[in-house]
């Protein structure tokens, strides 16, 4: 039986469309960043990836139901730890770079850049979706964050078409980060259990 969380792909799709209407809606994407981290930190494991990731559902829908995926195996290198944690590191560096660009606008050093940067390289003019009644740094962050979201969606769609529907999940930085948190928590738990058993014996 389908539950409410099976329809979260509608949220992901609506989010992407809203970015074409008003860029400030990009701030809503923070929900997809903060929620999985909070869930994993507070012991919920990867419940977000498993049950609430609208993007994963969207790729599944496009790839399986609409048969847009070739359904091939992903290349071996994409599932190695080196690639996954390397991509996470690269993603975080680019995210920090985006935050720094927002800071420069906040400080007044730079003016607002009404562009969406796709795949960290291609600058696409996006003036139609701007809101001028708000502080420039808020709008700048929205442009930067929407760039991140759109870029990851494009990468996800490419790997969905080339490989299996949810191939993005293999190297999704949020998935890698939340799994890493779960692993660290388990290691710490094992260490504290080891200490307790030593003191009790």
């Amino acid at each position, binding site marked *: 039986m389908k539950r409410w969380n099976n329809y979260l792909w509608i949220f992901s799709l609506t989010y992407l469309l809203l970015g074409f209407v008003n860029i400030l809606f990009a701030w809503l994407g923070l929900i997809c960043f903060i929620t999985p981290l909070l869930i994993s930190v507070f012991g919920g*494991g990867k419940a977000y990836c498993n049950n609430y990731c609208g993007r994963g559902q969207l790729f599944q829908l496009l790839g399986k139901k609409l048969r847009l995926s070739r359904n091939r195996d992903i290349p071996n290198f994409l599932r190695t730890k080196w690639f996954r944690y390397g991509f996470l590191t690269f993603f975080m560096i680019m995210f920090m770079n985006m935050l720094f660009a927002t800071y420069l606008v906040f400080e007044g050093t730079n003016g607002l850049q009404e562009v969406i940067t796709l795949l960290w390289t291609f600058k696409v003019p996006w003036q139609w979706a701007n809101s001028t009644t708000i502080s420039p740094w808020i709008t700048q962050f929205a442009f930067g964050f929407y760039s991140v979201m759109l870029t990851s969606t494009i990468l996800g769609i490419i790997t969905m078409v080339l490989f299996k529907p949810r191939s993005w999940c293999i190297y999704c930085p949020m998935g890698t980060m939340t799994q890493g948190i779960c692993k660290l928590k388990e290691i710490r738990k094992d260490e504290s259990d080891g200490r307790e058993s030593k003191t009790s014996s």
Partner: protein
Amino acid sequence: MKNIKKAVISNQCVACGTCVSICPFNAINIFKGIRAVVDVELCVGCGKCKSACPGSIIEIQEMEESQ
């Protein structure tokens, strides 16, 4: 002794949960957000998880069942 088929998940699992949602026998669970684990009592080796796994890290292996 007879041969039965079971899903075996490699340690490269990213715990995305695709196999969990597709398994018709609820035989797969995510262990503490780290990796998927198969309940060998429930798994019938149908292979749905293998074809759905985005990482292609699930194998269906034949093993002997003790009577």
